[in-house]
């Protein structure tokens, strides 16, 4: 069904934990030869499966105490183009993620703020003033865990 096997998944799992590992370290951990690991990592990168690296930071320690997910429904579909909304919302630095979704809402946003007062400022001044914005639902993130997902060792 797929071009990727269990060994690729094991490599991805290890790189999800720490992307800075050398192919020699990975090879030792996985019981493979270093050139074999290097070739597989290269193939995963070329296919775009490994899309880059990201820092995993304790964001509360950096002063971002609040993460809020917003469900946004557009009020004026058709009148204001989706492009206008998308461009404006993507330009807000506190908005970390913008997803176009199908269902109860049109967009799902991940917003970081220093505290609830700061979040209120972002919501009132930046989100509620976006072109075409209608109903907005906010849910404050309490905990989050990323799982290996389909990479889980079977």
């Amino acid at each position, binding site marked *: 069904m797929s071009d990727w096997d269990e060994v690729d998944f094991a490599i991805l799992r290890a790189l999800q934990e720490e992307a800075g590992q050398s192919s020699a370290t990975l090879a030792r951990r996985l019981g493979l030869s270093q050139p074999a690991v290097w070739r597989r990592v290269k193939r995963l990168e070329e296919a775009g*499966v490994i*899309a880059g690296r990201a820092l995993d930071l304790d964001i509360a320690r950096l002063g971002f105490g609040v993460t809020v997910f917003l469900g946004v429904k557009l009020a004026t579909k058709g009148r204001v183009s989706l492009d206008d909304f998308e461009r404006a*919302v993507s330009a807000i630095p506190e*908005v970390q993620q913008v997803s176009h979704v199908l269902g109860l809402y049109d967009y799902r946003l991940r917003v970081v703020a220093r505290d609830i007062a700061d979040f209120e400022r972002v919501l009132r001044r930046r989100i509620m003033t976006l072109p075409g914005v209608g109903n907005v639902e906010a849910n404050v993130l309490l905990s989050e865990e990323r799982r290996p997902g389909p990479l889980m060792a079977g």
Partner: protein
Amino acid sequence: MLDDTDRRILRHLQTDPAMAVADLAEAARIAPATCYKRLDRLREDGVLRATRAVIDWRALGFSVEVSLRITLDKTQSRAFDEVMAAAREIPEVVEIQTFLGRVDLRLSVLARDMAHYQEVYRDRILALPHITDIEALMQVATLKDVKTLPI
């Protein structure tokens, strides 16, 4: 406490996590030895937890991503713990979040196609305990996903 130098280091490093320490030191306008020391401390203090590979699930063959917003039966005191433990056993679940708001729990579910999604939904998701309501949002497109913070 983090000072301006720490913030400068993280600001530059987050834009290119693969950056060599020498280049990072230059960008942050500090000596390489200082940069090493600061990075070590940020790691020891748990501010910088790891540098993780970003995986493109679509490229891996999982083209369906659905966000399941779940309301739990809160009269059951162990509802959160039990549903989360059960969700961890489902390999298609890549993210588990809990919330304060109308939604209690959100699961991000990946599937190869709609048929696979339906199978996961019926056999695994609907079997989760303590659920009173589920709303699904299907991911159409990701327009922005920055891995950087406005530090």
